[in-house]
Every structure is written in structure tokens, then in C-alpha cells.
């Protein structure tokens, strides 16, 4: 039977051990049509509540609070790696306790957020947590609120780099490779999360079926941006 650490390690790419002298994390930038739409909302109103579900980003906090909005940070991908969330199902398989996950994360009043930035979370999060997380987001978003998510296309290989996104301008994002140590591993062994799945358009529509509308933006890189309205 696979150990907890084995189940956690499957979320990381094999080839990414951090060693002394390794080059700095890869960075690049991209234009984001979805972020452009959200920026129009940010510029038209004040005091919006924004939930950023990526790694803590000083850039993002500066961007949103500089415009007079409240920024909430919650790195759900990192939180999902907590070994205390692992339980065994009836067949003895190791699964994540989604109920406990949502008791400890995304705990907010209903209809609280105007904007949610999911980034690439659904592509990298364990399957059993994806739908419960989206359902919780529906509850905590205000009607008319925007949710932005990025999904890899079929062209993306299993070793697609996991990025965190920093907002640098109204429609520009700085992409920085994500690496973190699996629980119980030293910081010197930081690795990149592994792409868990590639959603097709039908899967994405099903994932957000409780939302009012969905818009797809295609780009030249292997990413689909999805802007959803609650």
C-alpha cells in the first residue's frame, strides 16, 4: 500500500531537485485577456474584495490594494499538500479529506468576493478537491462576481511548468515557476508541482455549470483562459 509520502510525491515532477548552483526559477510574461476584463471591473468600482488563490504575491497585493480594493491571499495548492488531510477510503486507497480541507480553507461568508483568481489551480490540484473547491467558491462569490482560471490545452505535456502569476499591469502577468518542498522534505528539495489533468471544454463547462456564464480566451501558449460569472 502506498505510503502518505508516496501519494504526496506523485504531485511533483521527477526531474526538479533543487541543488546548489541551479539556475533561478524560470520567469516570463504573458498578456492576459481575462485579466484585462477583470481590470475593467477593478477600475470602475472601489472597495472590491479580491481572492487570490495563488502563492503569496507582493505584486498582486500591491496591484489590488493600490486601486483601493481588499486583497485576500490563500495558497490552496500548497494547503492541499498537508499530510493531515490524507485518509483511507473504503477500499483502503489514500484520498484527500475534502470535508476537512474545506473546514480549514476558503472559510468566508457567503457572497463575499467580487473577484476570484483561481489561476491554474484546477489543473494541479488533486481530483477529489477540485469540484468541492469550485462549489465553495460559488457560495463565497457575489452574484455577478468574476472568476478567472487558466487551463492547459491538450498540447501541454505532463511536464508543463507550474507557474504562479504576478499582475504587473492591467492585462499583463509575470509568470514565475513554482517550486516548493513536499511536507516533511527539507527546503533544499523544492520541486515543481505536476500537471494532474487536462480538461476539455466540456469538462470545464461542467465544472462551472452552476455559474451564470462562461467565456473562453485562447492564446498562442498552451493555455485557455476561462472567465466565469457567478
Amino acid at each position, binding site marked *: 500500500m502506498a505510503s502518505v509520502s508516496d501519494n504526496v510525491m506523485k504531485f511533483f515532477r521527477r526531474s526538479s531537485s533543487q541543488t546548489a548552483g541551479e539556475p533561478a526559477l524560470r520567469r516570463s510574461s504573458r498578456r492576459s485577456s481575462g485579466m484585462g476584463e477583470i481590470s475593467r471591473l477593478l477600475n470602475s468600482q472601489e472597495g472590491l474584495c479580491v481572492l487570490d488563490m495563488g502563492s503569496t504575491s507582493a505584486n498582486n497585493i*500591491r496591484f489590488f490594494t493600490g486601486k483601493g480594493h481588499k486583497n485576500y491571499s490563500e495558497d490552496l495548492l500548497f494547503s492541499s499538500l498537508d499530510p493531515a488531510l490524507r485518509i483511507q477510503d473504503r477500499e483502503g486507497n489514500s484520498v484527500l479529506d475534502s470535508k476537512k480541507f474545506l473546514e480549514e480553507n476558503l472559510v468566508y461568508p457567503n457572497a463575499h468576493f467580487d473577484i476570484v483568481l483561481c489561476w491554474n489551480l484546477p489543473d494541479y490540484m488533486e481530483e477529489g478537491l477540485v469540484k468541492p473547491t469550485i462549489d465553495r467558491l460559488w457560495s463565497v462569490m457575489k452574484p455577478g462576481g468574476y472568476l478567472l482560471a487558466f487551463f492547459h490545452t491538450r498540447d501541454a505535456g505532463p511536464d508543463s511548468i507550474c507557474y504562479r502569476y504576478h499582475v504587473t499591469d492591467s492585462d499583463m502577468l509575470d509568470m514565475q515557476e513554482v517550486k516548493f518542498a513536499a511536507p516533511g522534505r527539507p527546503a533544499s528539495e523544492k520541486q515543481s508541482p505536476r500537471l494532474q489533468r487536462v480538461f476539455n471544454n466540456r469538462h470545464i463547462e461542467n465544472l462551472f455549470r452552476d455559474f451564470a456564464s462562461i467565456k473562453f480566451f485562447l492564446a498562442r501558449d498552451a493555455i485557455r483562459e476561462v472567465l466565469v460569472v457567478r
Partner: protein
Amino acid sequence: MDTPQTGEFAHIGKSVVIKGELSGSEDLYVDGNVEGKIELRNHSLTVGANGNVKADVSAKSVVIQGKLCGTVIASDRVELRKTAVVTGDVTTQRIAIEEGAFLKGKVDVEKESGKAAAPSSS
């Protein structure tokens, strides 16, 4: 160890455990465990790298290098150093966050006049 620049400050060492309400009229450096409430109206609080604070904090400025779980209200400034792990809401006029800092919670940046101020990153 990044200690405050002011000449006098109180120091809670890493072996010290305090449960209750702390208040004072001087700067405070916490490298131990504090649980409860910390109020330093016109002074600064520094949570050292070994510090573990589970408290609501109210101070003029707050510098965090260790762990803090609770709400932070700083009338002037909050700094999250790269080893900071903060769980809770932060309200301040200015905030600086180093790469590597972890924050789970809300950031509300507002000037005394009520207008939002742009934070900085280190």
C-alpha cells in the same frame, strides 16, 4: 537577528511562553511564544525568526520574521520578511512583503484620511 533600531525595547526570548494580554509604551521584540493580545499603540512589534505569536496585534509598525496567527492592525506599516508565516487579516497604511513570505488572509491598506495607499515589495 533583526532587532529594532530604537534604543530601548523589551525582549521576549525564545524560551519564554506568555499567555495573556501584553501592552506597553516601548518597542517589543518577540522571539518566544505569545498567546492572547498585544497592544503597543505608538510603538513597534517585531516577531523574530523563532517567534510564534497567536494573538491579535495592534501597534504602530509590525515586522514579522516568524509565525503570527491573528489580526494585525498597524497604524503605520507592516513588513513581512521572507521567513514570515502569517495567518490572519492585516490592516495598515503601508505593507512590504519579501519574496518567500507566506500570508493567508486579508490585506486592507488604507491611509488615515481613508484613501488607499500603494504598498511596496522588497
